[in-house]
């Protein structure tokens, strides 16, 4: 048995994903988002989270998947890595799961259309089937926020 890792489980539609609980600050319901111009499509804008302004990313869009409508179940998972704090829009958020690190395997090249670099691995669970674990560092890689050219007069 390896050590137990704790993950917050969520879905982006059909598949179940997990992020390490250490990186998750809170999980919020959908709230009004202020659009920020000149940012990539997957950056939905910013929200007011109890006085802090937090950027919001649509995770499906981030992975290049087709965006889906937001529903009652839609959640914003506020995660932070180093000095970056960002909200991730997911279709649904569930419980915390303990996963034995021995059960985590390297991710195949592509999972549900998501490139392997965004994934930390996959874990096979008895009840939930396969859980895809996200590599948050790569998901929040700023280099991929393409800066649009400057506005021309």
């Amino acid at each position: 048995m390896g050590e137990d890792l704790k993950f917050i489980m969520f879905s982006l539609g059909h598949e179940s994903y997990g992020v390490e609980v250490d990186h998750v600050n809170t999980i919020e319901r959908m709230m009004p988002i202020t659009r920020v111009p000149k940012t990539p499509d997957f950056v939905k804008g910013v929200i007011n989270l109890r006085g802090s302004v937090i950027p919001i990313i649509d995770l499906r869009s981030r992975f290049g998947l087709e965006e889906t409508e937001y529903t009652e179940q839609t959640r914003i998972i506020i995660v932070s890595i180093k000095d970056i704090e960002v909200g991730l829009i997911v279709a649904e958020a569930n419980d915390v799961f303990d996963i034995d690190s021995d059960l985590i395997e390297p991710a195949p090249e592509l999972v549900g259309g998501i490139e392997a670099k965004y994934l930390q691995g996959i874990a096979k669970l008895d009840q939930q089937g396969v859980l895809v674990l996200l590599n948050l560092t790569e998901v929040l890689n700023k280099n991929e926020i393409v800066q649009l050219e400057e506005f021309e007069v």
Partner: protein
Amino acid sequence: MSSDQYLNMFIDEAKEHLQHLNDNVMKLENAPENLELVQEIFRSAHTLKGMSATMGFDDLSSLTHEMENVLDLVRNSKIQMNSFIFDVLFNSLDILELMLSDIFEGGTGKADVSDIVSALHTIVVKNHEEGQNVERNQETDNTAAELDEHQYSVLKRSLESKQVFYIKINIDEGCLLKVARVFMVTSTLEKNGEIVKITPSTDDIEQELINNELLLYFISDVDEETLKHEILNISEISSIEIDVVDHHFLEKHFVDMQQNRTENEERIKPKGQSDIEKRNEPEKQPEKQPEKQPEKQPEKHSKSEKQHVLEKQPEKHSKSEKQHVLEKQPEKHSEPEKQHEPKKLLKTEKQSEPKKKLKSEKQSEPEKKLKPKKQHVPDKKSVKTSSNRTIRVDIDKLDTLMNLFSELLIDRVRLEALSSEINRMDLTETVEHMSRVSGDIQNIVLNLRMMPVESVFNRFPRMVRDLAKSLNKEVELIITGADTELDRNVIDEIGDPLVHLLRNALDHGIETPAERALSGKSEKGSLYLSAYQSGNQVFIEIEEDGRGINKEKVINIALKKQIISNEEAQTMSEEQIHQLIFSPGFSTADKVSDISGRGVGLDVVKTKINSLGGEIQIDSKIGEGTKFSVQLPLTLSIIPAMLVKQGEEKYAIPLSSILETDILQKQDIKIVHNINMIEYREKLIPILFLKNIYDIPGTNDPADYNIVILQKGDDKLAIVVDEFIGQQEIVLKSLGNYLTNIFAISGATILGDGQVALIVDPNALFK
């Protein structure tokens, strides 16, 4: 116990002391005779030394220790300040600063201080030599070595646990530097034990009133042979005799001595007086050897005096234990006070008094007693009285307070909106009252974050002095308005740009004394640094009476570097020409200097100031001088802004950039060179649409445009918005570290309804 919790406090306080030292040494340079300043400096150095030792930063404390040695000589008028000493002192301060910043960055504050320490040493040693020469001719017949009661009792007590030696050392007749030799002897001995009394006295040694014989009372754990061996290792020592002292021996000497004293006194009363005076002067450094000692009663005094020799400033001891660490011989400390006792006292009453004091002190903690203590006390007091009025607060806590307050501000706006909707008298009144109270709180919270620019300015005198020196220029720096306050955030950022501008003014603005003389100016240039507040802005001006900016030269260089075209060069205003020196890569310097080229790096200055929401302007007259005016917002956290609406989106435009708002007919827009322009005050200015700038959806195209005229320096432009919401104080929030460098957005704020509105960065719209 961890000292971490004290580290920040240490750093803060050490910085203060260092600044204080810098300031006062500067002042002293202008008034070298002012001994009060020397005292001040000494105290700061002393406190700093103690602090550093307590924290275990030995290099820091040993360097300050050496500084103290020099300062002590100065304050006792043993040496005159001269430019060499000033340079060494300033160098020491620089090194201290380096160490401190190392500590601040988590280092150990270690540094190679050997050069500077030896420079300081040289000063001290040289002084001895000089001192000796000067005073050599004075009479010297007080050589009778006396043990005063205190020394006597020390020796007596020591006999119980340690060995006491009576040592007689002879130095070669031909020895040239007897003082140095004595110094070596005493240092060697100090390593092995404690010198209680040395004859001749330290004063005499210092004055080179030495013959070839040195008599010492010495307490040590080391055996006789080893001592002998060590001493004989020093060259030019011809012989050494060591007697082991026992009670009987001691008794005899003491009694003899007292008799002698009495006789002596009577014999030499007039002289005695002067001696006493001499001794009372704090400490001298005895180094050479004793002159004649007719009588063999070496007095035990040696101890205290020796110390002096070695350390020159007993006062330092006062500090805490650390010193001991540094000096390795804590025991000595215990007796420093002796010096004060006039050695020659005849009367028993007199003697007994001091003694008592000493005793009680000794018994308690040796370290505390030293004289230094006395000095210290006033020092502390003055600090206390001033510091009692203020408390130190962690800036993070202030930030938190600020954040909480901005939450409140947002709620206030919300409540105001609600109450006007609900329209109930008592609710409206309550909300209005709350608004007033929170307005007052806002002022206080903002004020808490304000710091006088002094904290930035006070490093400049030193810098200007050094720079002027290295440039061989004469400059007088006149600072005014140092008490003008700015937000802490601005303060943190503004230092570097100012340094740059000052260096520039010195290097390029102010001419050399010769040039100045030629053009009929006084050789000494004047550099004015002033700060003042005006409305919501703070102005910082750097003005000199130097050569001024040569516009033709600037234009030529700009043309050469293709920063401007020929046509542009024709039409540029004076101000615009001056602004050219802020262009990247611009320099009018004929030759590259390591200090600055007017223009080299000035673009950085401008960028920085702009990023703080400030502006910089230049005023210059050839031959008369140049003035840089830096204009800064009072605070960066809460600003007045105009809220505008475009489509469904709201934006905040900082009021500081808004010239006015207006309404414009669609047909007033002219197209010039494919750019939309409007006529504003007889000038054509570009007009932009907010919806285009930010790609805001919506098809609204009314006949009348609401426009906002923005200005940046002399440039103006207009922006078309759908609707004006109104003016409001907004709390600046950052977009965080994920969204950085978003075009024309400088941050966000939270509106009364809880929505986030983005803040327009007007500067980005000007190209």
